[in-house]
C-alpha cells in the first residue's frame, strides 16, 4: 500500500493526511477515490486559494461558484445560467471525441441547474495552421463540436479561435454553455433529506475515461498518448433525450437535487452533493446499470461515461421519475439513498467495500505555492522601435493582416455550427458578440468568450485586465451592459513557481477588472498542467461574459449599413504595440509593452457608448482589438459590403496608428445629423470622438493618415483575403 | 449462432465525395497508383439463430427493410458461424 498512493497521483503528505482523517489505511477502492477527488481537476487544490481574489457577489448574482453553473438575474424573474469548462487534454489526444464530450459535459452542467441550454460558445487555441497536424486538430475539434452541439439543437453562437506556436503540443478547447430559466426554478446540487433516493439517469456506465480526472492533472507525454482509453466517447442523441427528459422531470417537485456526472463520475457527484447538504450517501454499485461486464468497484465509481446525471429524488417518487425517462427511452435507476451520517458508503451487492467521509473527499488540502517572477518578464517588455522598420507599402500590410488566421473571418468554422436553431440568434457569429433575444420579452442577452494568451504572457496582470475589458467592450459594442463573468484558467503546471506567478497575477488582473466593471465571476474552471515537452502554453484565461440588452432596439452589430453614414473614432491612441498581432505577423516579435489600459477611462468610454446606442444614434459599432483600427474598419466594410473613405490624423507612427491595439477604443457609424447629439452625450462621460470619414457605395477601401492616402484597395480584394484565408488551408 | 457481416456501399453510379477526399489525401501522402476509392458502411450483427438459411433470410430482410437505401446504396453480406 505504501507506494500505491503515487500511482493514483497523491503525494506522501496527502497520503498521511488521509491516514489521519480515516484513522486507518484506506483500501484500494478508497485510495482511488481520493486520487481522483484530490486531483487538481476535481479538487482545485492549487488554485482555490487564489480564486478567492475574484469577486463573486453582486446584486444580480443568484448563484455563484460551487454550483454546477452560475446564475444571474436578468430581470422579470428570468435567470441566465452559464459556465465555461476546458477539455484540453482529451482534445489533444482525441480531438473529435474530446471536443464533442467537452460540449456534452458543459451542457449537462447547465441542465443540472434546471435551465434549458440556449447557447454554446467555444474558445479554441491551436498551433499554426501551416502544420498538417494542427489543421487536423482544428478540423476534428470543429467537427466534434458541430456534430454534438448541432444534434442537441443548441445554437453555437460565438467563440474565438487562435493560432500560435505556444499551443502546438497542447491545444486548448474551452466550451461554454448558457441556459435560461426562471429564478425560482433554479436547481441546486444538494443531497438533502436522509431516506431520499439517489438515482442515476442516462447512459450506461462503462470503462470510458477511466481516470480522466487525474489524467487531466498530469503533463502530456508520449506515454499519455498511449493512454487513450482515458478518452470518453460522446452520444449526442442520448444527451438530447436527457435534456428533454430532465426538462419534463423538473416541472414537478420530485427531484430535490441534480448533479452532472462529469469528471470522476459517480464518486464526485455523490460526494459533492452529500458534502454540500451535510449528509451522506450509500450506494450499491451492483445496481448501477453497466455497459461492460466485470467492472471493478473503483472503475464503476470513477468511470466517466458520458450523458449521465445523478438525481436526488423524493422517497416514493422513483417510479414517477422513471416513467418520464422511460417515455424518452432512457432509464432512471435507484442506486442508493441519502443518509445522515456524512459518509460515502459503497456497497457491492450488499457488502460494504468502502466508506469515507464525504467532506474529506471534497476538501483536499489547499496549497499556496511559491511565487517567483519568471525570468523572461525582466526583459520581455523591452522593445526598441528602431528594430521595427516602418512598412513602405500599407496596401500589402493590411492584406497580410487580413489573411492572418487569427484575424481572418472564422466563417469556415462557424458555418459548421448550427447557430440559428431555437430562433433567438439576432446577431450571428462574426460580429463582436452574439445577441440572443428572449422570446416574448423586449430584451436580449449578448454573449462573448474571449482570451488573449500572448497579452497575459507579456504581462499577466495587465493582460488579464485587458482580457476582461476587451470582452466587455465586445458586449457594449453590441448594445449590452456586461453583468457577469465565467472564466476558464488555462495555465501550465502550478508546481513551477514561475507558472504559479502567472496564475497569481492573472487572477489578480481579472479581479481588478471584474471589480471595476461590476461583473462578478459566477462560475468557472481551472485547467492546469498544460505543458508539453516544448514547454508551457501561454497563460490563457478565457472569459465568457454575459451582457444584458434592455430593449431590442438597442441591438447593434459591426456592419456598416448605409452609404454616406459618417464614421467616427472614439478613444485615444496608445504608442505601445507589445503583443499585437501586427508585431507578431509583420515583425515576428512577441515582446514589448502592452497598450495602455486605464480601467476608469475604459468604464467611462463603455458607458458613453452604451448611452449613445441606447439613444438610437448609432448604425454600427465595433471595438478596436486584434489588428487595430485598420482591421476594425475592414471588418465593418466587408461584413456590410460597403467601401470607406477615411482619414486619420495623429502624431504617432502610421503603422502604430493603424495596427496598434489601442484600448478603450470604438469605431461607430452614424448619420451626420446625429453628430451633435453624440458629441453631447460623450461629453457627459468625459469622452471625445473624431470624425474619420464616410461609408461609400463605391466598393473601394481608402484610408489616409495625416493627409496621405496610404491604403487604397478594392473591397473585393480585402474581402477575398479576409473571408477565404482559413478555408483555403483545407 | 451466426454473425452477419454486412457491407453497404454506394452504387457505382453515385458520386462519393468522401471517397474522393480520402483518395486525394492518400495521393498527397504518396500513394500515387490508386483509384476508385469508395467509402461504405460495415455492419456486424449477431443472430440468435442456428439455421443458416433462416439467418440468411433474416439478414436479407433487415438489409432491405432498414439498413440499405436502394436509391443510392447496394449491399452484400457474409454469415459466419459463431
Amino acid at each position: 500500500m505504501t507506494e500505491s498512493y503515487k500511482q493514483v497521483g497523491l503525494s506522501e503528505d496527502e497520503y498521511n493526511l488521509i491516514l489521519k482523517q480515516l484513522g486507518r489505511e484506506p483500501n484500494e477502492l478508497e485510495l482511488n477515490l481520493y486520487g481522483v477527488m484530490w486531483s487538481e481537476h476535481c479538487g482545485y487544490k492549487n488554485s482555490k486559494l487564489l480564486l478567492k481574489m475574484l469577486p463573486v457577489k453582486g446584486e444580480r448574482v443568484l448563484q455563484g461558484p460551487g454550483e454546477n453553473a452560475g446564475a444571474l438575474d436578468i430581470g422579470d424573474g428570468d435567470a441566465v445560467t452559464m459556465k465555461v469548462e476546458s477539455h484540453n487534454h482529451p482534445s489533444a489526444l482525441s480531438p473529435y471525441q474530446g471536443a464533442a464530450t467537452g460540449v456534452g459535459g458543459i451542457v449537462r452542467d447547465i441542465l443540472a441547474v434546471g435551465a434549458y441550454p440556449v447557447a454554446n460558445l467555444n474558445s479554441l487555441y491551436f498551433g499554426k495552421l501551416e502544420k498538417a497536424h494542427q489543421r487536423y486538430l482544428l478540423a476534428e475539434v470543429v467537427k466534434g463540436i458541430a456534430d454534438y452541439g448541432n444534434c442537441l439543437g443548441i445554437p453555437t453562437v460565438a467563440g474565438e479561435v487562435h493560432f500560435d506556436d505556444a499551443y502546438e503540443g497542447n491545444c486548448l478547447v474551452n466550451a461554454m454553455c448558457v441556459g435560461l430559466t426562471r429564478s425560482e426554478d433554479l436547481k441546486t446540487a444538494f443531497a438533502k433529506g436522509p431516506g431520499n433516493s439517489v438515482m442515476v439517469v442516462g447512459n450506461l456506465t462503462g470503462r470510458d475515461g477511466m481516470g480522466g480526472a487525474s489524467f487531466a492533472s498530469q503533463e502530456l507525454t508520449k506515454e499519455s498518448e498511449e493512454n487513450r482509453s482515458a478518452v470518453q466517447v460522446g452520444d449526442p442523441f442520448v444527451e438530447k433525450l436527457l435534456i428533454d427528459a430532465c426538462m419534463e422531470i423538473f416541472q414537478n417537485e420530485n427531484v430535490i437535487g441534480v448533479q452532472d456526472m462529469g469528471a470522476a463520475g459517480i464518486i464526485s457527484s455523490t460526494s459533492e452533493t452529500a458534502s454540500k447538504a451535510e449528509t451522506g450517501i450509500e450506494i450499491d454499485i451492483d445496481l448501477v446499470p453497466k455497459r461492460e461486464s466485470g467492472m471493478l468497484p473503483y472503475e464503476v465509481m470513477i468511470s466517466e461515461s458520458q450523458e449521465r446525471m445523478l438525481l436526488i429524488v423524493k422517497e416514493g417518487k422513483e417510479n414517477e421519475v422513471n416513467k418520464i425517462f422511460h417515455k424518452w427511452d432512457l432509464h432512471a435507476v435507484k442506486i442508493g439513498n441519502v443518509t445522515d451520517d456524512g459518509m460515502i458508503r459503497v456497497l457491492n451487492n450488499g457488502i460494504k467495500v468502502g466508506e469515507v467521509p464525504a467532506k474529506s473527499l471534497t476538501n483536499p488540502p489547499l496549497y499556496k505555492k511559491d511565487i517567483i517572477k519568471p525570468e523572461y518578464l525582466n526583459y520581455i517588455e523591452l522593445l526598441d522601435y528602431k528594430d521595427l522598420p516602418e512598412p513602405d507599402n500599407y496596401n500589402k500590410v493590411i492584406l497580410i493582416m487580413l489573411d492572418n488566421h487569427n484575424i481572418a473571418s472564422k466563417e469556415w468554422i462557424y458555418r459548421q455550427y448550427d447557430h440559428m436553431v431555437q430562433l433567438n440568434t439576432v446577431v450571428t457569429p462574426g460580429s463582436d458578440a452574439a445577441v440572443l433575444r428572449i422570446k416574448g420579452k423586449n430584451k436580449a442577452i449578448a454573449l462573448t468568450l474571449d482570451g488573449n494568451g500572448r497579452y497575459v504572457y507579456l504581462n499577466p496582470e495587465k493582460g488579464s485586465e485587458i482580457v476582461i475589458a476587451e470582452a466587455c467592450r465586445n458586449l457594449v459594442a453590441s448594445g449590452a451592459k456586461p453583468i457577469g463573468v465565467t472564466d476558464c484558467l488555462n495555465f501550465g503546471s502550478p508546481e513551477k513557481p514561475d507558472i504559479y506567478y502567472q496564475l497569481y497575477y492573472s487572477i489578480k488582473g481579472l479581479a481588478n477588472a471584474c471589480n471595476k466593471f461590476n461583473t462578478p465571476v459566477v462560475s468557472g474552471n481551472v485547467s492546469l498542467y498544460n505543458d508539453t515537452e516544448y514547454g508551457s502554453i501561454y497563460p490563457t484565461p478565457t472569459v465568457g461574459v454575459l451582457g444584458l440588452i434592455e430593449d431590442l432596439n438597442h441591438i447593434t452589430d459591426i456592419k456598416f449599413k448605409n452609404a454616406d453614414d459618417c464614421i467616427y473614432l472614439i478613444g485615444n491612441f496608445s504608442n505601445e504595440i507589445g503583443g499585437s498581432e501586427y508585431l507578431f505577423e509583420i515583425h515576428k516579435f512577441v515582446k514589448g509593452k502592452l497598450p495602455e489600459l486605464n480601467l476608469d477611462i475604459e468604464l467611462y468610454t463603455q458607458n458613453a457608448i452604451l448611452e449613445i446606442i441606447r439613444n438610437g444614434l448609432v448604425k454600427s459599432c465595433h471595438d478596436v482589438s486584434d489588428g487595430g483600427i485598420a482591421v476594425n474598419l475592414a471588418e465593418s466594410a466587408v461584413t456590410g459590403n460597403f467601401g470607406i473613405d477615411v482619414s486619420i490624423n495623429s502624431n504617432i507612427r502610421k503603422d502604430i496608428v493603424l495596427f496598434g491595439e489601442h484600448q478603450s477604443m470604438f469605431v461607430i457609424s452614424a448619420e451626420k445629423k446625429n453628430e451633435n447629439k453624440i458629441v453631447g452625450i460623450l461629453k457627459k462621460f468625459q469622452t471625445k470622438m473624431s470624425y474619420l470619414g464616410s461609408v461609400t457605395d463605391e466598393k473601394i477601401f481608402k484610408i489616409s493618415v495625416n493627409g496621405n492616402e496610404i491604403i487604397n484597395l478594392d473591397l473585393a480584394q480585402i474581402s477575398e483575403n479576409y473571408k477565404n484565408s482559413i478555408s483555403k488551408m483545407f | 449462432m451466426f454473425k452477419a457481416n454486412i457491407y453497404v456501399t454506394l452504387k457505382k453510379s453515385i458520386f462519393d465525395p468522401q471517397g474522393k477526399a480520402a483518395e486525394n489525401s492518400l495521393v498527397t501522402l504518396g500513394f500515387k497508383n490508386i483509384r476508385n476509392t469508395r467509402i461504405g458502411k460495415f455492419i456486424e450483427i449477431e443472430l440468435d439463430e442456428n439455421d443458416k438459411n433462416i439467418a440468411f433470410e433474416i439478414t436479407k430482410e433487415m438489409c432491405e427493410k432498414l439498413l440499405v437505401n436502394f436509391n443510392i446504396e447496394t449491399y452484400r453480406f457474409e454469415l459466419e458461424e459463431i
Partner: protein
Amino acid sequence: MKFGVIIFPASNCAEDCYYVLSSLLNQNTKYLWHKSSEAIDTDVVILSGGFSFGDYLRCGAIARFSPVMERVIEFAGKGGLVIGICNGFQILTESGLLPGTLMKNTCLKFICSPQYLKVENNYSVFSKKYNSGDVINCPIAHNEGNYFADENTINKLEKNNQILFRYCDENGNVNDSTNPNGSVNNIAGIINIEGNVLGLMPHPERSSEKILLCDDGIKLFKSIIESYN
C-alpha cells in the same frame, strides 16, 4: 387551421415550428408524439428539422418506422397536407412519400448559412403567397441535403412542376456556383405529384421574423393558411 408538429426523439426544430405557427401566426397547433398511432386529426402535419434518432444509420431511416409515420402516410394518402423540413424532408424520402434521397453535402461538412432560393412557381398550396421567380432568403442547416434521384425521376419532377424551390444567388441565378450542397438541378424543395406533400431542406421557420434575418419564409406557412380559408 389545425397544425400538428411531430416530435421524434431529437427533433430539435419542432419547437421552432410550433413557435412560428402558434405565436406568430396564431394557429391552433399541437405536438404529435412519434409513438402515437392515433389517426391524425389536424389539417397539416409538419415533420420538423433535427436529428431524429441521432441521424444514426441514415438520416430519417429510423424515424420512418415510428408508429406515427403509418398515420402520416395514411393522412397524406387522403390528401392531408404534409411538410417535411430538413430532417423532416429526409424522413419523407425514406418513407417513400417523396422520391429521391438526401445525400451527404459534397463539401462533406455541415452548412449553416442564410441561403437564397428561387420560387419556381406559385401554383402550389405551399407557395401561392409568393410570385413565380421570387428570390427569398431561407437558411439552410444540414449535413445531408444533397438531393439525388435518378434521371427518370428528375425528368418527371421537372415536367410536372414538382420542383418548388431551387438554390440560387441573390439575383436568382441557378447554377453550380450557387449550389451549396451538390443537389441535382439545385433542388431545394419538391412536392409530390398530388401536390399535398412538400419536402424542403431550407428552414422557412428561421426566416419568419424581421428581427431574425428576414421574414421571407413565413409566406410559406401563410400560403397554406390562405388556401384553407
